[in-house]
């Protein structure tokens, strides 16, 4: 069970880690964008918008990500021909992440005092401008910690892509195990790679948070 023999698997695992990182970046970018748009749209549309968003968030957050991944993988080919595994995973994970981001953004915007919007409006700013210049920048500050947390969850979540056969870090590990039965070395290395990725993101997030903090 010594750690060293596992090192010969490092090159292939790092190659797989690149796929994991790519997948995470795409999902985080798309999920954050979609979630923010949904939250802003819901706010602009008032009560009915809020209710539609609430249902979306409720359904997507109430179902396991794995079920969404399987669902996308099995259902998408019936709708459109030629769906790659990557498309299915990205779609499922983006919709899932967007639900969390929408809820985070909604909460962050609700935390901005109504008086600020009123002040901006009375200075003659149209609603969209007031939202863009006043509410969103302030909301972004309080949204940073939960968004960073979500990003870490997403990195870990990409491991689920392996269950539909998308080759990334987790599947690469499973393939090696099936060939050379050395679970501790290989999964140890994989866990370490995930750990470093997640911790780096968390550290970066903490720095971002400090930068965005209010100056008293």
């Amino acid at each position, binding site marked *: 069970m010594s750690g060293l023999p596992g090192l010969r698997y490092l090159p292939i695992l790092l190659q797989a880690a690149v796929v994991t990182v790519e997948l995470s970046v795409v999902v985080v970018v798309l999920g954050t964008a979609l979630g923010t748009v949904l939250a802003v749209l819901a706010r602009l549309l008032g009560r009915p918008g809020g209710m539609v968003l609430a249902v979306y968030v*409720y*359904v997507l957050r*109430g*179902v*396991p*990500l*794995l*079920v969404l991944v*399987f*669902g996308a993988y*099995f*259902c998408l080919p*019936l709708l459109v021909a030629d769906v790659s595994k990557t498309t299915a995973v990205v779609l499922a994970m983006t919709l899932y992440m967007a639900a969390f981001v929408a809820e985070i953004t909604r909460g962050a915007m609700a935390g901005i005092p109504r008086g600020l919007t009123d002040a901006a409006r009375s200075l003659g700013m149209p609603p969209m401008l007031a939202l863009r210049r006043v509410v969103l920048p302030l909301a972004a500050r309080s949204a940073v910690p939960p968004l960073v947390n979500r990003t*870490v969850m997403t990195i*870990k*979540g990409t*491991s*689920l892509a*392996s*269950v539909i056969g998308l080759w990334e870090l*987790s599947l690469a*590990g*499973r393939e090696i*195990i099936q060939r050379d*039965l050395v*679970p*501790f070395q290989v*999964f*140890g290395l*994989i*866990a370490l790679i*995930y*750990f470093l990725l*997640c*911790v780096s993101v*968390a550290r970066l997030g903490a720095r971002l948070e400090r930068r965005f903090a209010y100056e008293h």
Partner: protein
Amino acid sequence: MGFDIQYILRNLPLLLEGLRLTLIVSALGLLLAAPIGLAAALMRLRRGAAGRVVAAYVEAFRNTPLLIQLYVVYFGLPLIGLAGDPTVSGIVSLGLYHGAFLTEVFRAGLQAVSARQLEAASALGMRHRLAMRRIILPQALRLMLPALGNEFVLLVKNSSLLSTIAIVDLTMAGKLMAEQSGAVYEVFFAIGLMYLTVTTTAALLLRRAEWRLQIAE
């Protein structure tokens, strides 16, 4: 393509059997995670080596995917001479993973109760352990109930990963049905609805418990 509800109704026993297993492993997972979290939180609050070990456990388990932890337990246990029973591996993994998250929940709850209460209790002659049990823990529990319930909902959802080590839980039952039949929409609609029902019920029960435990202020 129509929506063949008959297919789901015909195969409902299969799905319900999966649901039953999902509920059982989730409940056992929580029964393991809660004491782990509480013990770790109590150790974490002390200075010294024990606190550092717990901190390392929390960081390691929170920053790696549950799937990988599950594989280590499932594929690794047989190598050190322990039988790799999938259900046991799954419950242990769920317990360790969510135990790490619960450690932080319990720690926050314990710290939220004023330290003066501990001082007051010791002034009345209570030992630390007794003061913890009678004064701090009951109050902390009330404070952390929402986070605890939230973690349970996540645990139920994460129990779906057990399907990757050949446990026929709700997710696996659905996947098998989807592979064997053309009724893909119907199957995923049904299992999605079942998970939603479980998570909603858990959330409602929790809100009721919170409401009952509320202090009149």
